[in-house]
């Protein structure tokens, strides 16, 4: 039992990407990851959000990096849980425009880097910041469909 669609990839390519990401991790990490990430959707007591660092995607909107990220999405077995094309499996759909932990670059970064409590592993250790930003760039490049909250069978 596994996702309905998963992207094919070549091991050679995957090894190259992984080792590249690992090498760049230590230096890039220092001083970049803030002590806290603020979630737009979260309520702030007293109307005042807590202090937190800022995270800026160095590759925001870069189509070439997004393409690398698509490969990484398969190499790191993200598709095994989130499905091919990130369309959902045991893990949530990442291409539906709705977000459990926020959909900004910084929020998606934090989710991948540190993991989440229902089984999302922390990939920061194996990928480093550069690898995580590459994935963020891919995920943010997925075209979200128009949000249609209604599923109707009327007339069928």
């Amino acid at each position: 039992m596994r996702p309905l669609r998963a992207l094919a990839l070549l091991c050679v390519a995957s090894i190259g990407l992984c080792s590249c990401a690992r090498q760049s991790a230590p230096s890039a990490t220092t001083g970049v990851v803030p002590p806290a990430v603020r979630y737009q959707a979260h309520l702030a007591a007293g109307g005042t959000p807590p202090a937190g660092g800022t995270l800026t995607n160095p590759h925001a909107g870069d189509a070439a990096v997004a393409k690398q990220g698509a490969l990484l999405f398969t190499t790191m077995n993200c598709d095994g849980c989130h499905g091919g094309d990130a369309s959902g499996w045991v893990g949530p759909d990442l291409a539906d425009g709705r977000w459990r932990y926020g959909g900004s670059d910084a929020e998606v970064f934090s989710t991948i880097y540190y993991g989440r409590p229902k089984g999302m592993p922390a990939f920061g250790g194996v990928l480093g910041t550069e690898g995580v930003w590459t994935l963020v760039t891919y995920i943010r490049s997925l075209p979200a469909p128009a949000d249609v909250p209604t599923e109707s069978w009327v007339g069928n």
Partner: protein
Amino acid sequence: MVRASLTAILYGLAALGASSGSRAAAADARTDAEWTMPSRDYGATRYSPLASISAQNARGLHPVWTFSTGVLGGHEGQPLVVGDTMYVVTPWPNVLYAFDLTRADYPLKWKYRPDVSANAIGVACCDSVNRGAFYLDGKIIYNLLDGHTVAVDGKTGRELWKTQIADLGSGETVTMAPLVVRDRVIVGASGGEFGIYGWLKGLDLATGQVMWTVHNLGPDADMGVRVDTFKPPYDSGANLGQRTWANDTWRRGGAPVWGSVSYDPELDLIYYGTGNAGPYNPEDRPGDNKWTSSVLARRPGDGLLVWAYQFTPHDSWDFDATGTMILADLTIGGHTVKALVHFDKNGFAYTLDRASGRLLVAQPFAPENWAKSVDLTTGRPAVDPTKQTGVSHGNVKGICPSLEGGVSPASPPAYSPRTHLFYTSTNNLCMDYLAAHANYLKGTPYMGVTSPYSGGPGGYLGSFIAWDAARGVKVWENKEPFPNWSGALVTGGDVVFYGTLDGWFVAADARSGKVLSKFKVGSGVVGNPISYRAPDGRQYVAVYAGIGGDWALLSGDMRSDDPTDIRAPADFLKDIARHTSQGGIVWIFGL
């Protein structure tokens, strides 16, 4: 004749209990009223001898009690009834409820809420299911999704012991129902999609201590194989579990144990099936890949392997063999045979000699095209080369059945010693299979496949059938618009019970398949019905409703609990969300 043999087994057990002083052995001889094991008896027949509800009066069945479990995951498995108490285990977070059957409304005696890691939800490949508990020696024994086995006092609900058996960080979760034989608790782990090194463990019933661990693949030393005592019917030589894999691919080759275990007290053998080989691209692991997709027979005391037979060598289709091994004495060719019957994901139903592992009958019970037949003298399937998968084969189209199986191993069949028939759900789905090289990264999925499904031949997606395992022929079939995912129950009243994915609970005539009554139970049924006699002296049938258990099948559009996860319906199963949604409910039916 078969009935006499079953009775003999019961007496044998009672005698064993008396001679050895073992309380465990006496368990199988408990009263007709109860259901104390996942499959009711050690032979895993799911046959209840109760006959008050019969084919003549089943039309009058109606619900008498319901209970919301408060949990949304797929409700596989079944309740237990011990004396005047019904026990229910939920999917994650694996709550254990104990209901008092002596009082009106069946109020709770207690509930037990273990601290189960939420991380397990995402490591379970398919859904956060649990396949049930086992009662023995005053204890309720069951597994937690995050890799623990617990023993709970059946009277007080107090936790007696809790043992970590599996490693979530390596991709192992636990969904199977344990089996207890004498003082051994037999358990295994899921994780065929995570490159686990599959195993079986024997725990001490009194303390929970792990007494032995044996692997389902790998070198003899790991597998509990001694050359003088391991006699596979179709293979020979040392280290088969290692030699049939390229290099060290066995180390992450899968062979999970996520179904159930059965036991023959006369032969003193436990039987269980192993899951798929990993990864899904077979060219990443040349060889037969023993003992994935196999049945293994071991000694419960020390776990030693006695025989093994591989249903699907070099699994190239995710054909787990974790479906139930049913033990029954059948008349084949005029002889009484101690048989083992197994409905495999690969679409064939197998009848084996359970003493030796030799194949007696192997015939398709559901539409299949990956193999032309199974050779009874060599035990090997004649694989259609055009259905062989792997990276070099590109996108292989139209393989039947799909990797959901001709039947899901999560849908255990039943056997009636009165009709001499086996009863099982089936799926009628096919698939394309595009394999890709997989990259092992500990604790993450290790697969490598794209495999969209489509409906199989005939314009229906599932069915419920009666099967003659002595001859290998289908006796009757009730076709269903959706894949059928529930377990089966058959009774001494010759009534067979099953549920459908669109939420019908059905009672049918065990001899003809004629539907006698049906009721819409609020959510699709993937659980297994049971029957028992309550303290009021009446016979009842209980079943869980609660669709789930497989995200490929359900495509996620069954959910209403998560506003951040909105998916399109599966193209082969468009209408299912129109008829049902998630939600666990315990139902009890009576006359």
